[in-house]
């Protein structure tokens, strides 16, 4: 079967109990503001990288909160850390630190 990559919605359930939540725990412990997301999509709308390529930081974070980490590394590498998302976030989430922590967690738990 062709691998459509991470951003294509897979035709299956989120098997929450089977997922490895260490990555999420690590991010939440180190950047608690991550919890406050209401999925408004402001970050994705303003994203410099998302303006150029299929890169949805909101969805990525949402999937991470559900324990879905497949393909995360490849996706998160698209971020340029420019900080626009941080400026528009209505919930005051430290989005850049979330990215740093996700990258750190990937290295840690790979």
């Amino acid at each position: 079967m062709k691998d459509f990559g991470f951003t294509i919605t897979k035709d299956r359930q989120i098997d929450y109990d089977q997922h490895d939540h260490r990555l999420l725990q690590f991010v939440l412990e180190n950047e608690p503001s991550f919890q406050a997301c209401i999925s408004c999509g402001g970050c994705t709308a303003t994203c410099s990288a998302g303006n150029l390529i299929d890169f949805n930081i909101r969805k990525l974070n949402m999937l991470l909160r559900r324990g879905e980490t497949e393909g995360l590394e490849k996706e998160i590498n698209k971020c340029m850390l420019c900080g626009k998302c941080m400026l528009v976030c209505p919930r005051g989430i430290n989005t850049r630190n979330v990215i740093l922590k996700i990258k750190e967690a990937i290295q840690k738990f790979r």
Partner: protein
Amino acid sequence: MTKKVAIIGGGIAGMEAASVLSRMDIEVLLIEKRQQLGGHVGEWDHLFPNFRPASEITRSLLNALQNNNIKICANTVVTGIARKAGLFEVKTNQNQNFKVDGILLATGFDLFDAHKKEEYGYGIYENVITSADLEKKLKGGNVLTTASGCVPKRIAMIHCVGSRDEKAGYFHCSRVCCITAVKQAIEIRQKLPNVEIFCFYMDLRMYGKGFEEIYREAQEKWGIQFVRGRLSEAGENIDGGLQIKSEDTLSGRPLKMIVDMIVLMVGMVPAESTSQMAKMLGIHLSGDGFIAHDDVHFGSNITNVPGIFTAGTITSPMTISDTIADARSAALKICEYIA
């Protein structure tokens, strides 16, 4: 001896409270900083959920003020309040000096200053207006046009401007903007049947009586489209068109769109005078900058200072129905206090 109450603020909360108190044989001083009574409602065209003219509300409230117990002080600003022998001494900029038994604060709210959300382009791009600007245009009765005089083909209504936004400094939900957007969208469509309208929202909060019904009417009858996504920024094309960026979060894709006009649904924020007043009187504010009640359930209208009461949006954003109810309950609390 007749008891006397000063009501500061002549919007709908102050007016309703004044008429109720006057009917209970209490003398009322209604102090309003502007020439006209009626506050923000006085500047509105039609009201949700039944599209009734706002002037009906102000007119009927004004009629109820025709009572000998009520003295209206327009163009008057309170400069000082002091407590003397169980009474309050209220000083004004007109060099008046009133002695009253109780005070009702009904100074309302301010509209969020949309300039603060610079990325939305208010004050920078001509075709970005606020919900209040739109209401003025509707009230003026002229055909809605863009700055260059054309009939708009597509309009975006942006919810939560200055509400639920930590970056703007306001966490709270303003409660009325979602339904106002729906109301205004329908009104625009009634006047301009060919215009496309998109509402950009984070959550739709149709909690009041009749709200859900007109939301549904907006979809079914008027074809208004709803996009779940927060606007991140707006830019201007060479031809004056506005490009907006948002994410269509339900399809998970960034969304770009050219529109002819953007309407920012500005939120209700604490009035500048609220914090000054609170400081002068020693009244507690809650974290959102509105006046606090010590008891969330039983404490409405009561402040931490005995003898000083609140009515209306000085404590939180409210619809007109809620404001009227709040004003009546404030009148009751004052009566109990001075009796």
